[in-house]
């Protein structure tokens, strides 16, 4: 069994455990009832997305500095997965908000920033695809990966402050106090999703390397 | 392009001939550092084309098919801009305009110039940089007899100062008397490299036309 398959097996196992704990073993929330269980998917999705973009940033810097294709493959894969998990985070956030707060979207600072993040990194993928020269596309995507990542904290705080000075802060999903059994479920889910992400990242990066073997010199 | 190898000493003029799409412009643009070689390399007066590109650009001036001038600016303003960008903001623009015969139109916008006048402006922009490697890609387009003489003057001036000139052109007859060596290209590969003395006019015509 290769290391990659091993990692995949561990991911599936952890996901199974986390799913069991989240969906069955952990208690429902006093206020939200069963709907709180969506949090066990939403928060890890958002966490993995941010992790993916941090990896994109590091890989992009390394690629522009050293110009080794391996860094580009990593950046590309991390960006793709990041966009995927950002989309999932937005979707689960929306699904969570609807029954609990009655709206599909809350204009919460974190959600807005996540939506901006989604757009920025999707555009990075677009730029890659729309470039005639793959090497140039890689460079441009790396530039976006760097600028995007550095900008996100500033975007986040400007969005937070834009609202809070005029309206009371909406109750953000993550700001609720969490009882220990629920915290355990959350931690398990975070771990499971992180391992899953690592596995998918490895998988996607090797795929990128194989693809490039045919394209670039 | 493949297998193009040559050494060009100072004080010399290289004539590059070949049919369309033979790689003449590509070669010149590689020397100008506008393109990067995918394989192999080169150096200009000791500076590597890729690693030392900026040093190469200091020494090189490339005159291509487009004038690289701004339609809405006057001839004088364009030349002053080129001088400033070349690190010579105090260059005597009026003198240079006079040298290339553009004084009558000095304050006209480039928009109204004929192609020959635009070509003279491009030549002036290169000339004032006092390049040690002058790269001319089809320089005779639109030029009248005085303009052609200007190119010869520029070539001679550059070589006299210790530089070299590479001229790629279909109109090789004009360069025959000044050229020290000829490089004939066909489909990106050299078919003939050698001193001018060894080649007859018929050889050159055949090479330029691509008939082999």
């Amino acid at each position: 069994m290769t290391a990659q398959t091993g990692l995949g097996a561990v991911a599936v196992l952890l996901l199974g455990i986390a799913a069991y704990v989240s969906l069955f073993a952990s208690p429902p929330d006093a206020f939200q009832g069963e709907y709180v269980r969506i949090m066990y998917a939403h928060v890890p999705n958002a966490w993995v997305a941010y992790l993916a973009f941090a990896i994109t940033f590091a890989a992009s810097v390394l690629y522009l500095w050293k110009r080794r294709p391996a860094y580009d493959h990593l950046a590309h894969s991390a960006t793709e997965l990041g966009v995927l998990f950002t989309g999932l985070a937005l979707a689960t956030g929306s699904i969570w908000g609807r029954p609990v707060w009655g709206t599909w979207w809350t204009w919460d600072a974190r959600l807005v920033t996540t939506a901006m993040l989604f757009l920025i990194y999707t555009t990075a993928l677009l730029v890659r695809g729309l470039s005639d020269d793959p090497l140039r596309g890689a460079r441009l995507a790396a530039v976006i990966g760097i600028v995007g990542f550095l900008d996100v904290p500033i975007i986040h705080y400007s969005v937070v402050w834009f609202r809070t000075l005029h309206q009371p802060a909406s109750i953000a999903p993550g700001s609720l106090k969490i009882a220990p059994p629920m915290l355990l479920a959350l931690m398990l889910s975070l771990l499971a999703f992180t391992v899953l992400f690592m596995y998918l990242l490895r998988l996607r990066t090797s795929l990128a390397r194989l693809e490039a073997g045919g394209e670039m010199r | 392009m493949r297998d193009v190898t040559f050494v060009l000493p100072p004080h010399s003029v290289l004539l590059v001939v070949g049919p369309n799409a033979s790689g003449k412009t590509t070669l010149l643009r590689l020397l100008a550092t506008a393109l990067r070689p995918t394989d192999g390399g080169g150096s200009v007066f000791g500076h590597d084309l890729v690693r030392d590109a900026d040093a190469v650009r200091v020494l090189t001036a490339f005159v291509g098919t487009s004038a690289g001038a701004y339609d809405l600016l006057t001839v004088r303003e364009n030349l002053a801009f080129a001088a400033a960008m070349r690190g010579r903001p105090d260059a005597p623009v009026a003198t240079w305009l006079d040298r290339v015969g553009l004084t009558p139109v000095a304050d006209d916008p480039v928009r109204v110039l004929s192609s020959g006048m635009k070509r003279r402006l491009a030549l002036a922009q290169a000339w004032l940089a006092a390049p040690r490697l002058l790269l001319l890609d089809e320089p005779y387009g639109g030029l009248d007899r005085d303009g052609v003489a200007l190119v010869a003057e520029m070539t001679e001036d550059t070589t006299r100062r210790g530089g070299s000139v590479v001229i790629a052109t279909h109109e090789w007859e004009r360069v025959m008397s000044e050229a020290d060596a000829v490089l004939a290209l066909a489909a990106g590969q050299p078919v003939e490299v050698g001193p001018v003395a060894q080649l007859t006019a018929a050889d050159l015509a055949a090479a330029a036309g691509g008939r082999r």
Partner: protein
Amino acid sequence: MNGFLRAAAVARKDLRVEWRGRQTITATGMVALLMILLLGFVVGSEPARAAAILWVAMGFAAVLGIPRVTQGEVDQQALETLLLYPGSREHLFWGKCAALTVMLSALLVALLVLLGVLFGVDVWDHGGALVGVGVLGIVGLSVIGTLLAALVLHVRGRELLMPLLLLPLALPVVLGCVRLTEAILTGTAAGLWPAVLVSFDVVSVLVCPILFEVVMDEV
């Protein structure tokens, strides 16, 4: 080679070309005017809306005007010549960025006057502060905009990419300028917003010129 002189030459050249042709300022001005009229009509022209509408209009005007920074060179077939001049490409960045800042600032002044007329807000008494705050934001827009103008140059569909890239990345500028403009017009506290704009400007100024050289690496 004196970088400042080269940058100044580029800035002067860009501004001169713009002045003679007035292409960019006309297009961006008309779009901004249209947006202000449209939003003012649809959302309401109360003074409270003025700041928000102004800066949304500026954002879209910037999206249209910024590609001209590099596209102008391509149209004139002057880009290669420009890139082959010896010297750092950072000088080109600063020159173009400076010219863009001047152009967007001129647009801002025109739009502030429009705001005074259409929305009945008192821009005249606060003119200096409004322009000052605006320029603080415009600097950030120009720095990131110049980088993006170079970035989209060789990508297909560049008109689509510019709003997708500029608006999310420059969101802090728009938000900050809206709040600060409001604060000036209503006489309330500026809060942390000057810090937001300044940090955006500082980070962009440190990062964008270097990335510009990366993007403009090949001709």
